[in-house]
């Protein structure tokens, strides 16, 4: 009998709790989902935060042949304030729905702002529990973030979503390497590496986005950029390229292209004569033969071996140039510092890596393997 009384009382109290208010009940049509965030700086030193918000009433329902409205299927709003979260709150004033950050797919940051340092911005985002950590970060080169957000490319309805889809596709890892927010922050905090992120540009002639090249960082400041070719070589060095393509200009106006290219490097750190660390990099590249300037010969193993060694001679200086460029930027995105930390932990703790990195000596060995030959002999 007592149990029943307790149960009844408990039930009543539970009912009272439930009916006192559904504090977090906010229907999906009352939320304005931000699909992309754009961050610029203005002359007053404030952050201009732009948000791309899809408009459900303009979208064509799946399977429908009519309905929906012509024109852009998203709107862009912005607000200026300092710091980022204040600007985020300020966006609330510009819509009739509640602006929510929980479905943000990408963040576009202005290059100029990035050069001044973005540690504060990324930390603000990571601190917000609602921000999805897998939102990808981009940096713009010739346009402001707001322009990027306002642009409606011809084939894509909701660009913000397409970016994250692209980030999942292995083949895209040829022109650029996507960095989600959590990874960017992880690299920032981890003193042995520097972060990088893709560059995004507009091509008004073709009415498209172009995502190619990398923005490389020294700490939290943008230090420089790598173009498409350099990005490919970086991918080979860092082991990020998994299904890329490579074009190698052989001597004698011949061209060799490979597809399904995978590359990885083993970096060994040793001590040179003067006690400074010396990096020996062994890069292994594997690929499938895609195109070779017609020699009329059948491709025998000996022939392929010769091709490989010639191509290695061509590739090696390209890789060296990329590393040197990164040293000039003082941006250790390949991970030399990390290897030093792992292999010589005691030296790492005593060393000031940022001072040493730009001049640290290295040597590189390249090994190319063409393992498949496609449909022709």
């Amino acid at each position, binding site marked *: 009998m*007592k*149990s029943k009384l*307790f*149960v009844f009382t*408990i*039930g009543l*109290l*539970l009912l009272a*709790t*439930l009916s*006192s*208010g559904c*504090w*977090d009940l906010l229907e999906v049509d009352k939320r304005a989902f931000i699909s992309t965030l754009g961050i610029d700086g203005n002359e007053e030193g404030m952050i201009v935060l732009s948000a791309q918000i899809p408009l459900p009433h303009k979208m064509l329902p799946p399977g429908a042949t009519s309905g929906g409205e012509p024109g852009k299927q998203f709107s862009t709003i912005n607000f200026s304030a300092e710091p980022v979260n204040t600007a985020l709150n300020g966006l609330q004033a510009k819509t009739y729905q509640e602006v929510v950050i929980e*479905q943000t797919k990408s963040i576009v940051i202005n290059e100029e702002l990035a050069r001044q340092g973005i540690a504060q911005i990324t930390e603000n985002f*990571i601190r917000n*529990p*609602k921000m*999805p*950590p*897998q939102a990808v970060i981009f940096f713009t080169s010739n346009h402001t973030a707001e322009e990027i957000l306002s642009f409606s490319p011809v084939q894509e309805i909701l660009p913000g979503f397409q970016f994250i889809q692209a980030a*999942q596709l292995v083949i895209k890892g040829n022109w650029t390497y996507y960095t*989600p927010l*959590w*990874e960017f*922050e*992880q690299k920032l*905090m*981890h*003193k042995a590496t520097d972060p990088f992120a893709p560059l995004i540009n507009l091509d008004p002639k073709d009415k498209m986005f172009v995502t190619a090249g990398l923005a490389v960082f020294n700490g939290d400041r943008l230090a420089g950029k790598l173009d498409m070719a350099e990005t490919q070589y970086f991918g080979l060095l860092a082991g990020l390229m998994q299904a890329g393509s490579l074009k190698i200009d052989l001597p004698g106006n011949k061209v060799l292209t490979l597809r399904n290219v995978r590359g990885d490097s083993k970096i060994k750190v040793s001590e040179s004569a003067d006690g400074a660390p010396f990096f020996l990099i062994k890069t292994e590249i594997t690929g499938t033969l895609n195109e070779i300037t017609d020699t009329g010969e059948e491709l025998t193993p000996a022939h392929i071996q010769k091709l490989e060694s010639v191509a290695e001679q061509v590739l090696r200086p390209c890789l060296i140039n990329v590393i040197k460029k990164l040293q000039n930027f003082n941006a250790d995105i390949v*991970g030399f510092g*990390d*290897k030093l*930390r*792992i*292999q010589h*932990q005691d030296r790492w703790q005593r060393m000031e890596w940022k001072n040493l990195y730009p001049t640290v000596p290295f040597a590189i060995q390249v090994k190319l393997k063409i393992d498949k030959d496609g449909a022709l002999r």
Partner: protein
Amino acid sequence: MNKQALSPPISPVNIFALLVVALLGLDFLDLPYDASSFCGPSGYWTIVISFCLMVLPLALLAVLLQRRFPGENIISAAKSTLGKPLSMVGNLLFLGAYLTWITLAIRDSSTVLINYFLNRTPVWALVVLLLLSIGYIIINGLKPVLRLAAFICLPMLFFRFLMQIFALQGLKPDLLLPVFSASPVSYLKGALATANAFFPLTIVFLIYPLNTKPQKLHIPVLSAATISLLSFFLGIIGAIGVFGAELTQKFNWSEFVAVQYIYITFLVLEQVGLLFLVIWTSLFFVATAFLFSVVAKGLRQQLPFLDYQWTCIGLLLLVGTAVLLFPNDFISRTVFTEYRRWLILPVTVYPLLVYIVSIIRGKKALSNEE
């Protein structure tokens, strides 16, 4: 309250289920923080070391105590060994340690829930909901808790491991190297800090008389601890290997973020965090109910004039009030981080003390009460 519901016989398989649920449910999600703050990238060793330092001796102690005091748990063993006044103080401290842990855990879990899932819901609503729901289960004795734990044990174990393996999606082995990045002293300190993960294992001192096969006590205890060790280890590797030691220490709840970031196309959900919430909530709920029930039973054993059901109600009110006393998250978080590492002491040292004193005094168990 009939005896069968309050003290049901528990087979070794069901003891295993109870211990696994208790260990994983009260795994305070801060394990990667503890591990990496003392030992950096190779913090995953700390949990292994603390398993060797804590679990093996604990299992041995439980077996020895059971042999020395067959059919009696630590409460009655202490009474017959230390005498009534000392044992009263000791037993109340022992039970109080569990209550303190529950209070801190409920507050921390509410904070984390509000941060990530329910931003505007006030703390009191979550706490009242949780405690009332626990009250409904425990008011009918230990039997429903036992059954609930047995029911959820296998599926939750399966999904938890699945989540933790998926969380290794973005693992970078370099972040876990070098394999021995800290000094032996740091590893020891780290092991002592992470030992609080095995705190729920000490519940076995209160429930081993209910075991239907006393000669097999060590099997469920060791297997539950081993499976939990695997899960803790994976959790630490998942957090440090993905986020690195530095970022792991910044997160409030790194094990959750380690699941939140993953992307699984076929799962339909944008973020897997909700599934993790279900798994963690279920384990936490049942583990807390179990602890409450056992503590209420122990209190009743120590103070026979108490009635089990009223004791449960009283404990729920006490814990609820204590939880809501914390004025803000910073205080509760600091208190939780500091004190939970020390709570392991009373619950391990006290049974050891009882055993040693019983050997010195040469006293054996009196007749069975339970």
